[in-house]
């Protein structure tokens, strides 16, 4: 699905990613954990194509194409989705119209006809039930006046609507209460299948109680310093990050 090789990225001259190597196959769920400032969110932003970062070295192959050469919207059209740590508000743009435009832009890119109103509404109904998003939120402006939890649920709802091949969750669990966490996790779990991969970025173990990853990686100072199975997350929760840092030295 995605093959990241020796990826170096910096912002304003400070190198943040110092050679990331990570290969994710279709059907897999990977979790990246790590202390604050280790470069977790930078990795998500670089993969999604945020402009603020300079990539000095490395390559990223996404479904056989060079990801780093693509504009952000092309990456999305190719099937990459990012659930944001802080989803933004877009006043005056209704959630439904936003999704319709996004969906049809992606379809047009793939040479598909726009969805009919009936098909679109059917999909809307099915997917909003998945994240327990009530009609009120769908009709409102994108994220405007939403609570933190509602914004995150809306992002998962968008993910379900757009049906990407590869989804990155950037600290989706931060600021969520237990109920919202469960809803978000259910949304992700229901989308897990052999053709789709996930990269879950998180600081805490608790999201991984609900979404069991195939692999857990520990990121520290811009490098993946340890990789293991789901049990690694539990170990981190217990011991904290310091022992990893020491072990890495």
């Amino acid at each position, binding site marked *: 699905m995605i093959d990241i090789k020796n990826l170096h990225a910096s912002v304003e001259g400070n190198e943040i990613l110092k050679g990331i190597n990570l290969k994710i196959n279709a059907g897999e769920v990977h979790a990246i954990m790590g202390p604050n400032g280790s470069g977790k969110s930078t990795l998500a932003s670089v993969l999604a*194509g945020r402009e603020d970062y300079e990539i000095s070295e490395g390559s990223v192959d996404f479904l056989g194409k060079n990801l780093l050469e693509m504009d952000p919207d092309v*990456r999305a059209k190719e099937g990459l989705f990012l659930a944001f740590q802080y*989803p933004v508000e*877009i006043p*005056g743009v209704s959630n439904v119209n*936003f999704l319709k*435009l*996004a969906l049809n*832009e992606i379809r047009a*890119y793939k040479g598909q006809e726009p969805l009919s109103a009936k098909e679109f509404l059917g999909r809307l109904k099915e997917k909003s039930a998945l994240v327990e998003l009530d009609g009120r939120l769908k009709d409102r402006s994108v994220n405007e006046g939403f609570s933190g939890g509602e914004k995150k649920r809306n992002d998962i709802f968008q993910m379900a609507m757009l049906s990407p091949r590869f989804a990155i969750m950037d600290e989706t669990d931060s600021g969520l209460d237990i109920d919202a966490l469960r809803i978000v996790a259910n949304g992700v779990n229901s989308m897990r299948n052999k053709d789709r991969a996930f990269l879950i970025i998180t600081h805490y173990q608790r999201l991984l109680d609900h979404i069991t990853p195939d692999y857990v990686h520990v990121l520290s100072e811009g490098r993946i310093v340890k990789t293991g199975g789901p049990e690694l997350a539990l170990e981190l929760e217990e011991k904290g990050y310091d022992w990893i840092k020491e072990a890495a030295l």
Partner: protein
Amino acid sequence: MEFNEEDKILNEVTGKEYEFGFTTNIESDKVPPGLSEDVIRLISEKKNEPEWMLAWRLDAFKIWQGMTEPEWAHVHYKKPDFQAISYYSAPKKKVTLNSLDEVDPELLRTMERLGISVNEQKRLSNVAVDFVMDSVSVATSFKETLGKLGIIFMSMSEAIQKHPELVKKHIGTVVPKRDNFYAALNSAVFTDGSFCYIPKGVRCPMELSTYFRINESGTGQFERTLVVADKGSYCSYLEGCTAPARDENQLHAAVVELIAMDDAEIKYSTVQNWYPGDKDGKGGVFNFVTKRGLCERNAKISWTQVETGSAVTWKYPSCILKGDNSIGEFYSVALTNNYQQADTGTKMIHIGKNTRSTIISKGISSGHSQNSYRGLVKIGRGAENARNFSQCDSLLMTSTSGAHTFPYIEVENPSAMVEHEATTSKIGEDQLFYCQQRGIGTEKAISLIVNGYAKEVLNKLPMEFAVEAQKLLEISLEGSVG
């Protein structure tokens, strides 16, 4: 590039017409440049006007001669040479259009680019269209349907001939000849425009619409519109403007007067898309317009405008809330790009008791443009319990553009309540990235965000105009990332 294409087509069309018109007397169709009493007499004579109209024009000309151009607006431009302008230009081919299919193909193309053809608009939405090309009204449709209800909707020239008593009674009562420099100029030389009268208690069943177009080079357009809504009547009026690309600056100095008698309501919507000049600020229309409405008791006037065109705009659609309980509204989206300059806003003059006004202004500045909101809210001594709410938002698309707000508030009655809110924001990179990450390309993302920002105003437009306005914003913002 698109403008070049349009220019080419336009040249073909006008070139042909020129050939065609060679055997007719071309000189009589366009008055030589310059302004004098003789020119005014000539215009009046060509239009076969009654004596009182000529006297009115000449009086305005005298007043204008004693006035100087206003300089207080936040705009900079080379003042037009009023002696270099031709004050009357009629289409060379004498057109009597039976259907809108015969309308200028270039305009139709522009309309098609906006996703809406005049014909379609007419068919779909029951719009009665009056079409003013250069100075002369060439087509007014739906006259019969309206006639049955006693509604008069025709070109100003025709109204002066057929309903002189109505024109004479109302013209210049809301915007007097000496109101300002451009209003005086317009009063002296106006060549056409639209006239509309809605009789007592009649609700006009369709949108009344006028398309203005400057076609000829070296001409000015000075149209004059007068809408009179008699007691208890209602009408909604749409005004659209286009002009082809020209290197020189063209002058457009219009006057619009609205009169809403007791219990009447007028909705006046404008989509202004005059040629804004090229990327380097060369050419474009100078849009110096005076628009004002008078509200009698319980009357209501709503101005809605979407301004994307013109090199320089100077325009303040206003309401005089004379009657008790009358209501004035102003909803505006003004978008400037490249080197465009806009100084626009409104005046709400509260005179009657319990009068209310609402102002929603959304400015969008891109490129190197300057966009100013200028508004006056005046509460007179007798305006007990007057209320005003103003909201002025500015959105900056680039760091080289400017947004300015000049609100003036004058309150002479202590029971008044006046609220003013203003915000300025830069288009968010985070918002853009969010849209892109969902598969929406940059240009579409910008247009989505801007349309969302302007939604409160766009919602006030009649349906078919709202679609046009949205597309227009999209086109006007092409290539304005930064």
